[in-house]
């Protein structure tokens, strides 16, 4: 390689040291220590805005969702109240702490406790309790549901456990919130959500989803051919951008790759454009791609901007569709991963339904490749012989993420 093309390449794929991210390892105890896990929950998750869904999950007045938020040890209700306001509450009756809601979503003007029938309106006010003469010590206006702060950005709903967080959501998102404001995501309303429990520390999966180094190896039968190019065989991420605790990179796709296997070819040729490898298409069908914040380095074979909102939400913005990964810590060696994949249309024919079934199966298998590695890593750390996990110059996002976490928990 000539000197100038090497310089060009170094510019496109900056090294971790270029960002002063010089620590090339993390201590293994960050993945095994219950104390560090607790510190992550209290110092990171209890002090951050956390994404818990999207406005489109609450299509109408009185719509609600009910969601587990493991690092808060909480289940919460997010509701569009009868006055049109968005509210979030702990799913806990003020009488003796029974959850009010079981269903994952629905419509309700009130929530009634299944145990003794205490009832709250969907603004969180205690409205009634049976045999109220036996509770002279309970003043209704003092015993509403415990709320969380809630705000939205690009239709994503974020909660914060503090009634008055030290920074607003917009302040928390900072530069990232500005660069990606007004994303045209509203029309993407169809798709599927995959949820699974994994026997590993949550950061192993964050790592797997923020570097490309493993793609040609672990995913050599799945993603490699679609992402690895002669120019960038080790799938370095382009143009890493660090914004507050958040970070973004651009990924490229190998557009020269054309599937040759019968079923894969059929499925991909039918699948919705968000998942296809076509760069053509009308501009209105490529509206995410044309957003000024997306692909700032103008990579021609753009695949996605990977937007990591600290600490645990990743939005992948593709040409004309998007997906969200969420990495939820449950215990030091247990996590829940939720992935929601959106498309502008739902299947409208049997062949499109087949393509959706195919994409769900292949997507599941790719995530399984990553989760299997993470589970095996966790197992090996139990031996106690591993003291350090190493991070290369080609993995700046991992160094940055580890640095941000350690700043908060020390």
């Amino acid at each position: 390689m000539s000197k100038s093309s090497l310089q060009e390449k170094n510019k496109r794929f900056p090294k971790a040291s270029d960002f002063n991210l010089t620590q090339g390892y993390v201590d293994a105890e960050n993945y095994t220590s219950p104390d560090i896990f607790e510190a992550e929950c209290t110092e990171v998750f209890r002090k951050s805005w956390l994404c818990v869904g999207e406005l489109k999950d609450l299509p109408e007045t009185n719509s609600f969702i009910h969601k587990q938020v493991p690092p808060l040890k909480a289940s919460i209700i997010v509701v569009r109240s009868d006055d049109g306001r968005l509210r979030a509450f702990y799913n806990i009756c003020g009488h003796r702490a029974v959850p009010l809601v079981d269903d994952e979503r629905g419509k309700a003007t009130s929530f009634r406790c299944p145990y003794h029938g205490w009832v709250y309106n969907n603004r969180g006010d205690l409205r009634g309790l049976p045999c109220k003469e036996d509770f002279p010590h309970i003043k209704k206006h003092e015993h509403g549901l415990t709320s969380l702060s809630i705000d939205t950005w690009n239709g994503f709903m974020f909660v914060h456990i503090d009634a008055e967080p030290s920074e607003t959501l917009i302040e928390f998102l900072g530069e990232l919130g500005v660069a990606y404001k007004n994303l045209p995501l509203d029309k993407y309303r169809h798709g599927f959500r995959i949820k699974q429990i994994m026997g590993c520390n949550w950061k192993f999966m964050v790592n797997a989803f923020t570097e490309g180094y493993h793609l040609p190896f672990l995913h050599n039968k799945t993603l490699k051919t679609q992402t690895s190019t002669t120019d960038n065989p080790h799938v370095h991420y382009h143009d890493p951008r660090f914004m507050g605790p958040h970070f973004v990179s651009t990924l490229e796709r190998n557009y020269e790759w054309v599937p040759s296997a019968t079923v894969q070819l059929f499925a991909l040729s039918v699948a919705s454009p968000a998942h296809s490898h076509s760069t053509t298409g009308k501009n209105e069908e490529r509206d995410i791609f044309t957003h000024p914040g997306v692909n700032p380095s103008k990579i021609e074979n753009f695949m996605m901007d990977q937007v990591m909102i600290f600490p645990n939400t990743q939005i992948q913005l593709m040409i004309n569709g998007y997906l969200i990964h969420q990495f939820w810590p449950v215990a030091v060696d247990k996590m829940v991963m939720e992935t929601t994949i959106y498309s502008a249309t739902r299947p409208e024919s049997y062949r499109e339904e087949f393509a959706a079934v195919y994409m769900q199966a292949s997507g599941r298998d790719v995530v399984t490749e990553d989760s299997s590695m993470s589970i095996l890593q966790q197992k090996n750390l139990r031996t106690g012989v591993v003291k350090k996990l190493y991070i290369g110059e080609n993995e700046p996002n991992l160094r940055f993420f580890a640095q941000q976490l350690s700043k908060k928990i020390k």
Partner: protein
Amino acid sequence: MKHESSTDIKKRQSSGGSLLPEGFQSLEPFIEKWGELYTADERYYARQTSTMEELQLFYSAASPFLNQSFEHLDTFSFGEDILPDSQARLLRLMFSLAEVSQAIEIFGQPTVPHTPIPHKAPTIEIF
């Protein structure tokens, strides 16, 4: 969709009833294993617990019918539970092919490498 036991299937075969649409009869031997799977979980489990020979046998028989199947199925209006029995059975066979093809076309083995068998499928919610 109504679930039929394998005895029902045998009865219909012996009485000359048509289990699959005209032109797809050669896939009938695969109905018992691959045509009565109704969910992604069931398909994933069947794939993981089959041998490569079983998967290859079904793949070789069914993949040449992929285009033809959807040319036929897409003459029917699209929606849940409205296909006639034999078309619904063909659709289920093709959904199984989507799953089996991951083993044959992608991995060259029944399961995702380094993954315990059977791997529990994640929950999938479609909206």
